[in-house]
């Protein structure tokens, strides 16, 4: 039997072959091999779709990665502040600055009286000469100190209170008593400062946690909104696929991979951003650490933290796409 064709289609003319093939099974259950193929195809085409709209993709990635890297930067800051605080652990001592007119004999006798007290573990005398030497070796102000004609430092007693008697909050009573002593110019109790630092660190940690949740939510919304637009732009394609018998999972798959890609790429961008911030801050931070005699070093993001960021980002991207597809794709009756 010869089919006639329109003139425009003469080139395609050929005897109709189409043998009556055996009743096939296209309307049966999808098979595993094909299922895997569809996954890998969705994986690739979703990336192609992202690169097809570089402007919109870059904007989404920028917003997402900013939202991701802010809490991580705060955590990083916190980690370093804790490390710094750790090096001030010896600050439990009470620094007692004696009045300039108090001579070394009077200082010794005061130290002896203090040693007798039940709530004092130890008293160390630092003469003005010792203080100056220590200051020279540590602070980096050696040149400036050379200008001084006389030693401006007073005698200092380092009083270590007994741990058992030291209250957990606030200063031990000896601090107040010392402050009232007629030989004493000033009492410096570092532990109080330490307690404040701990409180500030705890607050910052909570702040970082809250920010992480809020910004994570923002990242979720950004991906969700992008995928929602993507779905709206592909309404015809989606409805045709549904008419051809595509189920929920099939229609949704490419969009989930889109979310996955957004998450992975935004995670990488966030890591790069954090790296840039670290480089930008490394010079001033280097000066800060050297002023502590190089006793502690600034540390950046560890491999584990970097992987955690990437993982969180991927999960957020996928989740955002999942929510958008759930809300946006009606699986009822396409037109």
């Amino acid at each position: 039997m010869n089919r006639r064709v329109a003139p425009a289609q003469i080139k395609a003319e050929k005897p109709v072959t189409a043998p009556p093939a055996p009743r096939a099974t296209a309307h049966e259950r999808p098979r595993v091999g094909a299922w895997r193929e569809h996954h890998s195809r969705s994986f690739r085409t979703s990336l192609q779709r992202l690169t097809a709209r570089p402007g919109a993709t870059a904007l989404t990635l920028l917003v997402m990665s900013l939202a991701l890297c802010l809490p991580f930067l705060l955590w990083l800051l916190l980690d370093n502040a804790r490390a710094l605080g750790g090096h001030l652990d010896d600050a439990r001592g009470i620094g007692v600055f004696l009045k300039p007119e108090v001579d070394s004999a009077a200082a010794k006798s005061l130290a002896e009286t203090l040693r007798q007290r039940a709530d004092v573990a130890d008293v160390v005398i630092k003469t003005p000469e010792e203080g100056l030497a220590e200051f020279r070796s540590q602070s980096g102000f050696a040149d400036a100190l050379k200008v001084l004609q006389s030693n401006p430092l007073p005698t200092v007693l380092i009083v270590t209170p007994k741990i058992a008697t030291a209250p957990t909050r606030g200063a031990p009573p000896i601090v107040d008593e010392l402050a009232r002593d007629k030989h004493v110019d000033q009492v410096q109790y570092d532990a109080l400062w330490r307690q404040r630092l701990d409180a500030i660190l705890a607050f910052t940690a909570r702040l970082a946690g809250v920010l992480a949740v809020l910004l994570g939510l923002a990242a979720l919304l950004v991906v969700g909104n992008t995928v929602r637009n993507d779905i709206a732009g592909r309404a015809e394609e989606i409805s045709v696929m549904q008419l051809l018998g595509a189920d929920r999972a099939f229609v949704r798959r490419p969009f989930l991979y889109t979310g996955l890609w957004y998450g992975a790429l935004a995670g990488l961008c966030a890591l790069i951003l954090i790296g840039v911030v670290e480089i930008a801050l490394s010079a001033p931070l280097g000066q800060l650490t050297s002023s502590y005699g190089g006793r502690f070093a600034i540390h950046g993001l560890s491999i584990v933290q970097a992987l955690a960021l990437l993982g969180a980002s991927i999960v957020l991207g996928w989740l955002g796409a999942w929510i958008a597809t759930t809300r946006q794709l009606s699986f009822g009756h396409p037109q």
Partner: protein
Amino acid sequence: MIRFEQVSKKYASGQEALTDLSFELAAGEMAFVAGHSGAGKSTLLRLVALMDRPTRGQITVNGQNFAKTKARHVPRVRRGVGMVFQDHRLLMDRSVFDNVALPLEIAGCTREEIGKRVRAALDKVGLLAREASAPVTLSTGEQQRVGIARAIVGKPPVLIADEPTGNLDPMLSAEIMKLFAEFEQVGTAVLVASHDLNLIKRMGKRVLVLDHGKLIDDFRPATAKAEVPA
């Protein structure tokens, strides 16, 4: 293959599109659904494709009783019904090959299987040479034939077409209709809606005539199958 038993469809607007409709179409049988515009032809086909549910009555397609078909089984039922649309609804950002391959991808066929079957389907509609083309580069008639290839590539037991020649000139229309008639010979139940009575009569197939949602005639034209004018 397709059985309607006292099917009525009333839209939410209150419009009764089909009233008490009963008919049966066997495997390997082809029928036209004729009638004026608004007679309910599209509504009938939408019910066959499970794009909508009847208000009353029973519909059975491929042995599947639609009244008992849950929403999550709708996709599986649709895979057994090939659909051709008046405006073909090809995806313009994919090649001809990828358009025709779509139902097989959905059905879960492997790449090599898809390659073989897509080429067989394109061969059948005479467009094998255009598999790599973009649909926009094809003529309207060619686009409609790609739409047909997509509908039949999965070898569905039921093939439905809503005004498939609505946008084509008479010669191309006859060409397309003859193509549909070929699938009947492979054992497919074919249901084609059209308001072109002249064309329908020339085809010499069974005709279901709708009028304001009612089946007013079910006949086979006595006229012998006429030659398609060149």
